[in-house]
């Protein structure tokens, strides 16, 4: 019933081969609802019914029209619950401080900012790609950054703007209903580009990374967080999270769309980004908290810098 993808990484010559087999249905017919691990915010790459190998997959459009209306409607339906920390986005709220800790640590070191300052990102332009309701954008703004948040779902942007206006520290965030590719066309550039829990929803991660790279200034930072394509991730993020614990609606993630850390490093490298640091997120069910760890077998986050 689900689309079956087989992605084979050929390590020796560094070429990323992707052979996709589809059974009967396509990606879009999956009830991929908006979830705690990000909505279909990076619209261009959630394409439907692509039955081609990666070699001729440059069929990426930058318009949100590639998204099916059904998916958009699903995301819009629970868009009001973005800021309900006990609602469907609860896991993302719980993960937020942990990913921010990694972002703070790597960006402070890279841009030589004072880690003991309450506003270390003062003077930095950051774009949150796939910002959803602004869960990541708002803390970044409070840390002093000039933040632009983009998302393909109009309702998400509306919610994000409303919530950000409640606090003068966050009301300066620029929210746009647009896509990474469109921003590239507008020739926008940022000191740091963050795409957290987005790339696993993208049909063409390699092209997506190229867009992220194009948005990053030379010597700037790119941070991507996603889920590993490992057996353990299948057991936890798909079986446990979706089918048993019902943290996420079934079909939120396609295991075959996950990237392994090696693959991510490779496609970033081809997009002129050198991954410098990587860490894993580990969930402790007893305390209900996430923490940073060396264990990248399920959730992981990567920090890279753009070559000049």
């Amino acid at each position, binding site marked *: 019933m689900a689309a079956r993808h087989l992605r084979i990484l050929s390590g020796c010559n560094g070429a990323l081969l992707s052979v996709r087999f589809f059974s009967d249905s396509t990606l879009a017919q999956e009830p991929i609802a908006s979830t705690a691990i990000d909505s279909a915010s990076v619209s261009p790459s959630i394409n439907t019914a692509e039955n081609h190998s990666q070699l001729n997959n440059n069929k990426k459009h930058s318009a949100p029209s590639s998204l099916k209306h059904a998916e958009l409607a699903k995301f819009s339906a629970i*868009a*009001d*619950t973005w*800021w*309900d*920390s006990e*609602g469907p986005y609860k896991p993302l*709220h*719980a993960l*937020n*401080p942990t990913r*921010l*800790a990694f972002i*703070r640590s790597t960006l402070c070191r890279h841009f030589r900012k004072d880690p*003991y*300052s*309450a506003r270390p990102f003062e003077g930095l332009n950051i774009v949150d790609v796939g910002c959803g309701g602004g869960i990541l954008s*708002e*803390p*970044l*703004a*409070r*840390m002093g950054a000039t933040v632009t948040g983009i998302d393909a779902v109009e*309702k998400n942007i*509306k*919610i994000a703007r*409303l*919530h950000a*206006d*409640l*606090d*003068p*520290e966050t009301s300066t965030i620029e929210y746009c209903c647009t896509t990474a590719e469109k921003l590239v066309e507008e020739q926008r550039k940022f000191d740091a580009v963050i795409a957290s829990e987005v790339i696993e929803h993208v049909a063409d991660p390699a092209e997506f990374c190229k867009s992220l790279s194009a948005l990053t200034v030379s010597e700037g930072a790119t941070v991507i967080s996603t889920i590993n394509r490992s057996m353990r991730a299948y057991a936890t993020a798909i079986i446990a999270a979706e089918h048993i614990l019902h943290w996420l609606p079934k079909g939120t993630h396609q295991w075959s769309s996950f990237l392994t850390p090696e693959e991510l490093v490779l496609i970033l490298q081809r997009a002129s980004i050198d991954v410098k640091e990587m860490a894993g997120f580990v969930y402790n069910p*007893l*305390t209900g908290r996430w923490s940073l760890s060396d264990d990248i077998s399920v959730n992981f986050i990567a920090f890279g810098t753009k070559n000049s």
Partner: protein
Amino acid sequence: MPLTKHLSVAIIDSNPALGKSNFIKKEDPPDPRVSTVTPATISFFKEIGAWQYVQQHRHAYFDKMQVWDYTGLGYTKYNARDVNKEILGCVVENKVLHSSLLSCMQNTEFRKTIYPSRLTSMALLPSSSSISVDSTPSATTLFTKGHLAKLDLSDGKSLYAKLVVGADGGKSRVRELAGFKTTGWSYSQNAIICTVEHNKENYCAWQRFLPAGPIALLPIGDNFSNIVWTMNPKDASDCKSMNEDDFVKILNHALDYGYGPHPKSISSGSVDMFSWFRGDATLSAKECFEVPPRVVKLASERMVFPLSLKHANNYVSKRVVLIGDAAHTVHPLAGQGVNLGFGDASTLSRIIAEGIAVGADIGEVSLLKKYEAERKPANIVMMAVLDGFQKAYSVDFGPLNILRAAAFHGAQYISPLKRNIISYASGEQRLPLPLPLFT
């Protein structure tokens, strides 16, 4: 604390002592309102730079403690050296603690304002989770410079705050206004407190459990000690009204031969059932029972307070957090109440700093819940332990008396148990037993 120094703080307290310059006359005899601060609290004070001010005034470290009861069946002596420390705690007058904290605060750079009035009402603006796309928020209510709790004071002023910390004691107005429910009961006991004088110095803390409640003698410095005597309300008011000489007589009676005999000390040569538990014996295991120093005269007025146990069911809600006695009130029998409060303050300030580090809004519930998750279990356990003691020691029943005696012996001679008790009471250990889960 560089992460929090940009925060502005408003202190709402109608206590007149906050206004005038804090000048404590050294010649005054000690005030009967004292607190026993544990080593953990002393570390906290040192961390924030307030302990240096405490050291300028009267304060009394003690390194020994003796606990026994009226049945004379057992006693326990604790010594700080049992856990390789130098002190078990320090007894400080409350006015000294206040003035030290005030001096410390006045010497910091952060923006603070003292509002010498009372809180009359508190309003929390609509929570953001109820925002839906179609609502049009009115600019005046929501966009009030980002400060979302409004406080009205008794002198007519109004304040807006991102976070309201209810540190206003057992009858907390913040707790009341925020609608937190409490659980608790009153012990049908009152505590009578006063300062007394001896002929010589006292470096030991003494506590004797009597049928109606414990009597504690705490060193306060300069030959003075503080008495905290728990008894039923009728006796308490009698004690308060009787003349001073009679009161001194019954004090000595209660500390010495009153109600029952002295416990016998077990000499080190004899065989007893605990010899195989002993292991690495503590220094105090060999110490004999001692009679506390005689009270020579009364040095202050006598004050009486009712005792109760109270616990707020929740410590946090949006933009509001409770700390100290506002969150929990305990029996004074182990001198732990104020130390739990300082523990709350220390944890809350750390959690706020951690929140700021990741750009959180300091009033958001998810951040404040981390404080609650850390303090609530520890506070509840302490309250249960103290309540357990209070109940166990208020029944005069043969078999129970023997059980208590066994408990005294156990604590005296089973060294690991004694070390555990000392660590827990000093605030070094969060829970009475080392449970691996709750670290």
